[in-house]
């Protein structure tokens, strides 16, 4: 039992929270802007590289590189929205999807141009050490858990108690009604990018802490993050968090029975099953 916890539960929680942070943005952007944002994974990568620069230049611990990485990624995301998505706001959703695919390609090309194709590792990450005997939890996993708890609490506070957060939820419920209610929808859209992209950037840094930094690290997580958003119900931020934890957990635990190389098939399988049997997801979101 303790072995199971050490080998599977810890990594399931870590992977699940990374998916959860990424899926919140995907879910909200889908509901508010009505398109599947294919470049979202690359926001994770962007955040990871922006943290890498801070760690190498300033010598700080990766966790303390998260805030600035979030801010810079949010600014770049708002800029990308202005330049590449806003002109298509009134077009059919598929046009936006293709545009986001183009942005994803551009971002990855930029990563390769600036940082090459090799793996990077953050400094200041200790190897796993024994804590809370007999449980074995790595120090980096404690940092990740702390960061996730702070980020999810902040997101909850924003969505449940602030005027802007409530407007985001209102708009993801019904953008047309939000408009006739007098909510300035373009401003809410900007906030959606800020929240979605900054959480994705944080997820990227955490993923970099857990594994490594590479130009395609975020792109490779796009499928499980979409699976998490769909499982939780598109437009339901709390659903996205739950969906992320479930997908992350299932992927890790699946390695008990199938080879680890195939674990991403689990996310795909769950997504297909959800789309067939409960397309609105657990929390009754929008149907894809």
């Amino acid at each position, binding site marked *: 039992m303790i072995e199971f916890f050490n080998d599977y539960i810890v990594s399931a929680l870590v992977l699940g929270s990374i998916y959860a942070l990424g899926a919140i943005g995907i879910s909200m952007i889908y509901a508010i802007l009505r398109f599947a944002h294919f470049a979202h994974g690359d926001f994770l990568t962007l955040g990871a590289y922006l943290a890498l620069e801070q760690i190498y230049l300033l010598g700080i611990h990766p966790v303390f590189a998260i805030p600035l990485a979030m801010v810079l990624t949010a600014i770049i995301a708002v800029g990308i929205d202005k330049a590449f998505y806003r002109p298509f706001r009134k077009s059919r959703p598929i046009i936006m999807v293709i545009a986001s695919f183009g942005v994803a390609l551009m971002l990855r090309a930029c990563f390769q141009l600036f940082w090459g194709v090799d793996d990077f590792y953050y400094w200041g990450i200790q190897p796993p050490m024994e804590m809370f005997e007999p449980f074995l939890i790595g120090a980096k996993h404690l940092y990740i858990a702390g960061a996730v708890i702070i980020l999810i609490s902040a997101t909850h506070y924003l969505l449940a108690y602030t*005027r802007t957060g*409530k*407007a985001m939820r209102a708009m993801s419920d019904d953008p047309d009604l939000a408009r*006739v*209610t*007098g*909510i300035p929808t373009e401003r809410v859209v900007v906030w959606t990018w800020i929240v979605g992209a900054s959480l994705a950037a944080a997820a990227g840094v955490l993923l970099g802490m857990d594994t490594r930094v590479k130009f395609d690290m975020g792109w490779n997580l796009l499928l499980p993050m979409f699976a998490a958003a769909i499982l939780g119900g598109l437009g339901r931020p709390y659903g996205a968090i739950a969906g992320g934890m479930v997908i992350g957990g299932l992927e890790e635990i699946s390695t008990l029975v199938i080879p680890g190389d195939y674990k991403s098939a689990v996310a795909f399988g769950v997504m297909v099953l959800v789309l067939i049997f409960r397309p609105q997801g657990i929390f009754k979101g929008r149907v894809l």
Partner: protein
Amino acid sequence: MTLLTAQGMTGGYGGMDILHNVELAVDTGEIVVIVGPNGAGKSTAMKAIFGLVHLREGSVVFDGKDITNSQPDRLVSIGLGYVPQERNIFPNLSVHENLEMGAYIRRDDIAPALERVYTLFPPLVEKRKQAAGELSGGQRQMVAFGRALMTDPKVLLLDEPTAGLSPLFMDEIFDRIIAVNETGVGILMVEQNARQALELADRGYVLATGENRYIDTGPNLLADREVVESFLGGGGGNVNNDAGSTGPQGDRDD
């Protein structure tokens, strides 16, 4: 000059005109009803006032300001409220949050407005923390009205407020509309239950094929045989008996 005046409204979705030279007016504290057969352009006329349908010609003036083809956030801020027919609440937000969203554009204290809505719609008080999507049809409609009342509008536009409600709730909603009106809010509503709505109306507009047909007080329209026969589906309370006998006569008179 009346508070809200729409003149010569001509326009529609895309290239096709649905409205042809339509006029509508609402004065302070009035109840004005738009009736007419399906496809007459009733809802379209209301949406055109609220800037949701593009007007090619004509003008809409509210409180002395030209609001032709204006954006909703501007209209809400100057005192016009709009309640769509369907999807008029945020289902995953609580009742209270729905009302708060109604007041999004306000920067001042919204407590008096909340108080007023809860006084007008007492059933909402105990449901305030519940998700609006879980309420009954009649209560959802109260949330929708309440949301639109949060900005203290001078005129409220209601698109078929009783559509899809059982007769019991229908009377309840009409009572609430009167109560809202008695607080000084002008009402412009599109209504399928034409007879019941016209009984309340200071003025009624009969639209057909996107044009004004009749404009008169509610009681006068209900007393007009031609209007009743052509647009209200027969005369009097016993619709079935009268429709058969007087309908053909009406046709001959034309």
